[in-house]
């Protein structure tokens, strides 16, 4: 089985702890950056930050 996102996946504690930790960290990093980028797009479209020119 190739779920969740790993070849040779098995539903045992080791896989859940290791891969769970990895995806937990990646999710926080991903969500954080997504928030920053979307907010930056909205801010830019509202004209914020253009005083720098």
């Amino acid at each position: 089985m190739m779920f969740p996102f790993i070849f040779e996946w098995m539903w045992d504690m080791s896989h859940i702890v290791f891969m769970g930790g990895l995806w937990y960290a990646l999710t926080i990093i991903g969500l954080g950056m997504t928030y920053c980028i979307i907010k930056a797009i909205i801010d830019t479209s509202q004209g914020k930050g253009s005083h720098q020119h």
Partner: protein
Amino acid sequence: MDSALIPKGVERCSLGKFALFIAVVGAVLLWGVFAMLLCWLKGLNQTNMNDYYGFALWIWADLAVIALGGGAFFTGFLRYIIGKDELKNIINYAVLIGFICYSSALLILAIDIGQPLRGWFIFWHANVHSMLTEVAFCLSCYFVVLTIEYLPLIFENRQLDKVPFLHNLSHNMHEIMAVFAATGAFLSFFHQGSLGGVAGVLFGRPFAYREGIFIWPFTFFLFTWSAAACGPCFTILITKITEKVTKKKLVKDNVINLLAKISGWMLLTYIVAKTIDTWYWAAITAPSKGFWLMDFYSSNPLYGGGILFAEIVLCGFIPAFLLVIKDFRENPNTRMIAIILAVIGVSLNRWVMVLQVMAVPVMPFDTWALYFPSWQEIATTILPVAYGVILIALSYRYLPIFPQERELNPVTD
């Protein structure tokens, strides 16, 4: 010529002088790249490693830069989670040094695995019974965190900051930096700890092997604690070297002293725990396996008994006391001695835990494994140093790394 890129209100050397400096360091970098390509194209026969001695200079360099780069996660933890506001004046530099250390560690690993094109196997075919898998996961993720922490600094370049999207992105990233810093501290805690844990479970290597609580939590915490104690010392050391090279004061003494004080207390508590660990291992664990303390040390200067004294007393207790006692900490000379000793101490610890562990004979027919790296190993170990110098030089010239620089070095005209 490049004055439009240099931060406002600060002075930098001429572009010609800067280019000459980069060219000299770049030549060293190219030498390292050449050796790296030899290792990749011709294989690990370019090294002096063999089946008997599989951990070599690279792994020591890897563990040492990971420990020394610990200044980034611990300073970030103190600044964003604990709320030590003064550290905002050195956090940029700590992040840059951490970024260099961790990218260097990943580069060394990419050379060390011999087949870099298969580097992704550790994620896809993850061995979930190995602490090194956890180290690889955390190291990669933490490098992403460090990149995220370094990016806003790049976006603050005078020209990039004029781009509204990048200005807003940098502002937003600063706003939630505490989330990234906390994630970085979480990841660092685990990978530093697991690197120590690996040594503790090497039951075929009685020099490193530990039992019971001396595996968990001792081996884990000793590595994490030493990185948190000595990483900031490395940040201070590089800051002081940068001040010497640029002939400028870049960070106020109260910031340096605060970081040195915290490092001192961390180092003191670490070295007490390390002493307990060493005493229990020497007095109980090793004798129970049929070894006496001096069986682990040879008359060879690389692995002699003096290394134990150097690691625990000379580069452990002495710098800890120098940093904890206010008069010594606030004296620039004694503070510098303490910082250098602490940096040597943690590097020596990683040396012992990697090279001596492999060198000690474990079978009756074994002899001490004396190893000397090949020039390719030396060149690829110097490569990250040259890369680090270049990245620091570029960042110092074009990015506002030191928030106190303008105040401490007012430009007269």
